[in-house]
């Protein structure tokens, strides 16, 4: 996990800088996501704002060293330990995890998320695999027997099933990209889309001169994310130029426009998780080829793109995501309501980097130690 991630789930981060180590601890009010931002209430912006300030502090502070992911894990774990214990002790009832009955290799994703959940909420967990033919009534009965007060619903199938549960059961959703609007009002939906603020901060770490970030997105899929991204970009002194595309043709046109406008010395291209705008068969190969030719940095929210040649991507740290989801569920148990509602971007991330592309772009990665995976293998 990255040092920038976990604490920022907490609405009022307080940084403790001691030499090179940064710890955060906090006591926070529940449901404090109605910050006056002009954005719809679905978007959790307060933590984003605090987070941006934090990043700026870090960037400006010469005493801060980049702390590698595996070290940051323990630092963050220590920082949040007291708070979590307090919540866990206050919790009454149990947590149920509903997850998709899915084969490998994706099964491992949910297995790791559940590992994280179990490591955080020991003894309070019961797991239920959901398939297309699962009997929801049976699961409801099981939840009653278990005295489940809150459900962590994983994946699309888990989320769908959670809609049919008893209304008094709290729901924390994870392991999905997006959710229907009706889910967002009452539930906390943790997306697998990496927080744009994290993407941009990594980008700036590698390319300090970057000023503009281009992207192409399908508004039907990613409006919420782009709104978040615009704020994040502004806070980090970047300009986000987002093109809408409703089909492949308009996406290709948008990329041509971007290539015509871009200046590789100060621009970069972001590929969100978007099946229309980042279509893998035609659009992605063209974008990668043209970017390579023009020495334009491309970064992505899709882990698989690193192998294809983007500079870097952020991808879920499944175990830490599980721990976070468990923390949210424990909060519900203690407080009787969700810590936050609406769509939340992913902050439990790892970074994968393509060193070949970095070299091509003239980026010195030798001091970049905060990546979990590097490609291609030598």
């Amino acid at each position, binding site marked *: 996990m990255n040092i920038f991630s976990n604490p920022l789930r907490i609405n009022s981060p307080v940084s403790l800088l001691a030499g090179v180590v940064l710890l955060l601890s906090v006591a926070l009010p529940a449901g404090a996501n109605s910050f006056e931002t002009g954005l719809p209430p679905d978007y959790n912006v307060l933590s984003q704002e605090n987070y941006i300030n934090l990043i700026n502090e870090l960037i400006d502070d010469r005493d801060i060293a*980049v702390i590698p992911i595996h070290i940051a894990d323990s630092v963050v774990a220590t920082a949040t330990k007291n708070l979590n214990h307090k919540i866990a002790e206050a919790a009454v009832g149990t947590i149920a995890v509903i997850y998709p*009955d899915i084969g490998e*290799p994706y099964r491992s994703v949910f*297995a790791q998320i559940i590992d994280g959940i179990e490591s955080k909420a020991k003894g309070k967990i019961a797991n239920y695999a959901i398939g297309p033919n699962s009997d929801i009534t049976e699961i409801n009965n099981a939840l009653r027997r278990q005295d489940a007060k809150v459900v962590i619903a994983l994946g699309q199938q888990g989320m769908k099933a959670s809609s049919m549960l008893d209304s008094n059961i709290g729901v924390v959703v994870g392991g999905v990209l997006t959710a229907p609007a009706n889910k967002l009002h009452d539930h906390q939906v943790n997306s697998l889309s990496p927080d744009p603020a994290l993407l941009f901060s990594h980008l700036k770490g590698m390319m300090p001169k970057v000023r503009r970030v281009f992207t192409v997105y399908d508004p039907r899929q990613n409006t919420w994310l782009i709104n978040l991204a615009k704020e994040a970009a502004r806070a980090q002194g970047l300009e986000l130029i987002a093109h809408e595309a409703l089909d492949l043709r308009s996406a290709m046109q948008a990329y041509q426009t971007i290539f015509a406008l871009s200046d590789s010395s100060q621009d970069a291209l972001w590929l969100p998780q978007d099946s229309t705008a980042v279509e893998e068969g035609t659009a992605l190969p063209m974008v990668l080829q043209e970017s390579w030719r023009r020495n334009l940095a491309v970064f992505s929210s899709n882990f698989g793109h690193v192998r294809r040649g983007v500079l870097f991507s952020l*991808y879920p740290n499944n175990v830490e995501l599980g721990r976070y989801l468990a923390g949210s569920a424990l909060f519900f148990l203690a407080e009787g309501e969700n810590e936050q509602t609406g769509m939340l971007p992913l902050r439990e991330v790892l970074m994968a980097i393509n060193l070949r592309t970095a070299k091509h772009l003239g980026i010195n990665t030798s001091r970049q130690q905060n990546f979990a995976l590097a490609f291609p293998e030598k």
Partner: protein
Amino acid sequence: MNRLSAFIVVVSQVLASIAVTYAAPMLEEDEELALAYGDKSFISIATGSQQSLRRAPSVATVVTAEDIKAIGATNLDEVLETVPGIHVSRTSIRYMPSYVIRGIFSGVSSPQVLLLQNGIPTTTMYSGDKGNAWLNVPLENIARIEIIRGPGSALFGADAYAGVINIMTKSAIDTPGTEFGIRAGSFNTQNAWVQHGGQWGDVEMAAYLNVGTTDGYKEIVQADAQTLKDKSSGVAPVSLAPGSVNTGNESIDASLNISYDKWRLRSTYKLRDRVGSGIGISSALDPTGYTRAEVVGGDISWNDPLFARDWSVGTIISMQHYSSLQPNNLQLYPAGSKFGSNVFPNGIIGGPNSWDQQIRLSGNATYSGFERHSLRLGMGYDNLDLYKSKTIKNNLLNANGAPTPDLAFNNGIAVDYTGRQPFITPHLRKVSYLYAQDEWSFARDWTLTAGVRHDRYSDFGNTTNPRLALVWDTTLNFTSKLLYGQAFRAPSFNEQYGINPVVNGNPNLKPESIQTVEAAFSWQARGDTLVNLSIFHYQMQDMIGLLPNPAPALGKTYNNIGKQYGNGLELDAAWDAGRNIKLTGNYSYQESIDETTKQDAGYAPHHHLYLRGDWRFVSGWLSSAQFNRIADRRRAAGDNRPRVPDYTTVDLSMGTIPDNNHWDFTVSVRNLLDATVLEPSLAPGTAIPNDLPMAPRAVWLQAVYKL
């Protein structure tokens, strides 16, 4: 039903299942996850913990746990056979696997290949190879296997010669929870295992235990070394041939890995007991003798990637204890065997036992403070001690190397000869070394990696081995590499200090050396298609072989006598042909020439073709078919037998895709068409007139339960 029609039926069933696969709708869940984690073939990287240990550009192949599961492999040798440039042959002694890389065939158990487990050499001192415990190595605890073809001594030191095989075992994240498994199949083979991965606070632990037994296959050997002796002795034949090879064994494999912060402790245990003698230690069938080999190893490492600004440092200390014992002694020649005028009523009995202990200490540092450079420095010290040997036998070798009764000493039975005529005495080798490597990005898309390692051996002296790699990132999807490297193989203690009038050790041996030039190209032809090509030339010097002693002395002594060169190529491709189909394959060609005889160096296949198809079924099944063809294995000079027969094997495997049902099942058929598979017996003398018969068709079933 003949073999062909049986094969056609199976293939038809597989194809019918594919049709079902294509008709199924795309799952929403999969679509979403693919947008975050990448496609199915890539996701295991995101959920795994293993990253390459390679520190320099090379020609390499990686086999993952997913590959292993797909092909239904149950032991390491089956996996290595799928790798371009590698053919797994067998030795007549114990039928130990011999890894033939790029035509470099030693006839014994691959001393020219460095086998690492988690980066630590498995080499044993007496024979200078992986020893007798690396037989039927199970795969359940392996996260990935990296195979580097070509020289690697500039980083890895001794024996990284024809290639390096690095086995990485599973950590806690690779094996979450607890898993129990059982497997049973042909040749009365059974394995049972349990493994567990878990986390307690910041401490991660992975534990593994596998217990197995097999009677081994019992193919018939028509004639052995005693058969030849019988023909010349003029008395009643005593050979046990025709008789079956002895390939059974009992095994225990265990490991415990614990990590905390920057620290990691790993321990391993490997026992091979009742290891059958193959065709016998002296090429005469021995149904009663067996070997017990045991490895106990462990290491503690500490790594800090941010030790100081621009500095990353790490250190590791490892220990390995190895013993190879013959609890029941070995029947080198059967009862009634005659040498000269001496008849041995109990036959020739021998029991060479040895124990070695190795301690290795090393440290490394990477400095990245120079613009465009990454400098890696390392040093280390190895203490390699064959500290004890014990010789049991019922005869005394005379100056000609022939056994004599020595009844006054042994009274006709096998007794301790350690003080009278040992097969080897204890020896200690100390190695200290330094290495440096710089990776210099001297222009856009161009990187030059230059490295050199200097080893100082307490016995044979110093050796320095360089490596150069020029990498050009030609386009987004095309990479070109030009590689040069020099490597060495350290003489084994047997070659240096072995005591046997027929085969004498030579303490003045130098290491074997090799220089290799390679050009390698990697082309991501499409998002779903990767093609690699490597072309190589190598030159070997100072190859260790036996040279007749100067007259009037009899017998032979190890000397640096051989020279060999070789050329070849390896082509491999992988194509994700659909959401549920993956096709991979490779073709390897090599030609190796013994410079002394100007003839083929012998026994290694000139052509090796491997094809594999994986089909993933929506209904939760994964199946795989393999096709493996070994062709054109010529004999070495002086061996006038016809070429070793070509063969083609087909393997099929089908298993459930792990899901939430806790249970997984796999069924696999190896050598489906029951092809006759032979590996070469060696000249000169052709003690075993025919080649070595390998396993016929075999079937096994496996069940795994995950908590």
